[in-house]
């Protein structure tokens, strides 16, 4: 099947081609450098950067504290956990699915990491155990969707409740263990590497990895293909089921890492607090970043920019003393405005339920 070794087999040969040349105007389309740069970055990303600059400027003018390094670190660490979930949610959305159980998996992983750490006094065991549980949770999600033929939203809505329940059962609904004295957990929560907080590094690492996989590997390209047209992908020989299950398992693993970070930051395993509602923030960020819920479209860069925008907005409003309730309203409004603009730009007819 290798095209390089079978070059001489039936591809059309140029010599026998007697058809007239293609019309000239089709061959070259001149574009200015400026336009090329814009296309390369993407209109979506440029709007997000513009929005971030705008928000930063407004807040910075009113409160100079905003620009201090400690505050930037606060923003960075605040967005690290939701950022991780937003990154994997983006992959799931590109595949054409949705995972609303990520918050519950994070909660379950938080509790189990602390409990395993307490009983084995090994941070490594705690981390590995939690990640393993996350992978199993993802496998369960994937299998329900693939073999049970259940819509991803319904499947993960069910496991959202079930995983949360399991976390509450094994923890009796209370915070578990104490990791605040363990050097590894402390390093995760408050450590720095080359002056950059570990939490931010974890997010950067996962985001870069996800970006590379999506952009430059066969795996990523097939994920876009499955999300864009699953029939074409199947006829093209892609094992769709394997991709669905695989993506959910990776999502489970990353959600578990987010859970471990929650444990590290709070010093104990949290079944619910710190993780509840994160799934919706993650979906918000992915949608704001340009991922289309019908699949096949989206990128990590957009999601990260959206996470930063949401983080800056929350932090800025806190600095300016805006009521938390208003912060929610602002977040919601932002999402609606952004998506409406996207949809109007795509020029879809205004009939029925949009895809």
């Amino acid at each position: 099947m290798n095209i390089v070794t079978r070059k001489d087999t039936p591809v059309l040969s140029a010599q026998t081609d007697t058809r007239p040349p293609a019309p000239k105007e089709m061959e070259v389309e001149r574009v200015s450098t400026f336009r090329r740069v814009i296309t390369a970055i993407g209109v979506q990303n440029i709007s997000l950067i513009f929005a971030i600059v705008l928000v930063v400027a407004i807040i910075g003018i009113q409160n100079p504290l905003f620009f201090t390094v400690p505050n930037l670190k606060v923003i960075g660490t605040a967005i690290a956990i939701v950022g991780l979930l937003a990154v994997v949610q983006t992959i799931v959305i590109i595949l054409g699915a949705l995972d609303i159980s990520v918050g519950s998996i994070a909660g379950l992983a938080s509790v189990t990491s602390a409990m395993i750490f307490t009983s084995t006094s090994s941070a490594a065991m705690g981390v590995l155990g939690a990640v393993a549980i996350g992978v199993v949770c993802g496998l369960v999600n994937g299998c329900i969707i693939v073999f049970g033929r259940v819509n991803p939203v319904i499947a993960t809505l069910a496991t959202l409740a079930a995983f949360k329940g399991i976390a509450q059962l094994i923890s009796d609904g209370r915070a578990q263990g104490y990791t605040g004295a363990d050097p590894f957990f402390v390093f995760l929560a408050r450590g720095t590497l080359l002056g950059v907080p570990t939490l931010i590094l974890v997010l950067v690492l996962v985001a870069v990895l996800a970006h590379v996989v999506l952009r430059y590997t066969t795996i990523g390209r097939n994920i876009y293909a499955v999300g864009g047209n699953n029939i074409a992908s199947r006829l093209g020989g892609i094992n769709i089921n394997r991709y669905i299950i695989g993506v959910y398992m990776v999502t489970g693993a990353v959600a578990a890492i987010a859970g471990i970070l929650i444990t590290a930051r709070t010093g104990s395993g949290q079944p619910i607090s710190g993780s509840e509602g994160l799934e919706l923030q993650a979906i918000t960020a992915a949608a704001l970043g340009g991922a289309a819920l019908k699949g096949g479209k989206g990128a990590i860069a957009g999601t990260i920019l959206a996470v930063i925008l949401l983080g800056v907005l929350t932090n800025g409003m806190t600095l300016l003393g805006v009521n938390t309730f208003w912060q929610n309203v602002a977040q919601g409004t932002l999402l609606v405005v952004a998506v409406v603009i996207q949809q109007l730009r795509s020029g879809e007819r205004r009939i029925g339920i949009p895809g």
Partner: protein
Amino acid sequence: MTHEPIALRATGITKSFGPVRALRGVELELRSGEVTALMGENGAGKSTLLKILNGDFRPDDGVLSIDGVPTVFGDPADSRAAGLRVIAQEPEIIAAVSVAENIFVGSLGSVAYNRKALLRRTRDELKRWGFDRTIRAESLGSELSPAQRQIVEIMRAVVSKPRIICFDEPTSSLGDDEVTLLFALIRQLQAEGIAVAYVSHRMGEIFKLADRITVLRDGSFVGTQLVAETNHDELVRMMVGRDLSQFFHREPAPLGKTVLELRNVGNDYVDGIDLTVRAGEVVGIAGLVGAGRSELMKTIAGDYPIASGEIVVDDHVWRIRQPADSIRAGIGFAPEERKAEALLLQRSVRDNAALVVLRSLSRWIFVSSRAERALAKTYIDRLRIRTPSAEQLVGNLSGGNQQKVVLARWLATAPKVLLLDEPTRGIDVGAKSEIYAIIDELAHQGVAVIVVSSELPEVLGVSDRIYVMAAGRISGELTRSEASEERILALAMDEDVAA
């Protein structure tokens, strides 16, 4: 019978979809108490005409008059208000409610809802039209067989007491018993003075039922004949009579050994298929809509697993359970529904062309963008894909260029067998001839090619040998010299000889 009043008269009906003229100057008269059959090949314009009668489309030109009064249908409700009902071939049945509610859907709101009365009325109507043994008023929509769904659709029409009813191939999903009941129903409608239009491919039925026959060809009106004054042969001539000289004819390539062989292959869609294709041969598959041609392609491509028989590629029996297996065997498949089943419309030409061979363009899991660009460039040049660049989104290309991208994807796999399902559907004449030239060149390079097409001139022009399908089976095989439109059509309508 010839002096019955004209209930519906359509004159000069013309309708275009973009550059495609679906109907031009079509004439149709439906008389009260008569059955008028509407005949024509695939794509002759029968369905478009019915959709205009149903109010789905508005004609670009022409006059539609009911009882001599010119009317314009803005939507299906107008058509119904005028006493006209078109019975859909694939009816919309609401799964979660009963047959009674399905039949009276739309008029339920106008009367105080009384389930008992509704069921009683439904039973009376079913009995009156002879379907009381075939279907129960209480059954849920989801429990109905295709035949029963068709009956519900027919009942919907007759209970509204229309004066004109149009049937669109109503017997295609019915068994022999139900066909007998349907014919009785049509006779009863006729006796009550209702004008009936009846679209069917089955000659036997038409000679049994119809009083007149109107024939369409390529969107044009050919003529109307009284059944008593015509015969089978004349009708086939009216349906095909086309100037063949303007169509593509290719020089056969030298034939090699048999590359693809199907031995008694069967599944839910096709039955007892024996077929061979040799290297360098272009085999056409003809048949009417619903004959199982696309299903056969999907079976060979592994989308529909085979239940019996075997598929042999290059003297090796392959167990093909999914498309990935057929690709491994060296089979490439360009499906009929280009946009829905082949293309990633939001991705680039490069991305679409590389889809199947992505692995071979990669080192470990990393795609070599250089190899990928080279691949895209090769096929953009060789197939003359008109696109500003390899990065253009496929959704922005014309139909012909989209089809070339699909071909590029499969040519990149260096296939031994290429299955092309309606490769020129919906693309313009220039791109069509380019596709024919590509097929010809592939044959000369020793690829075994199967072309499914509903356009008889295309099948005749492009094929070295033709299989004709009817009702999921191969009903005949014709060599290039034996094949003619008349013979293909006769084999394609084979089933109605038995019916």
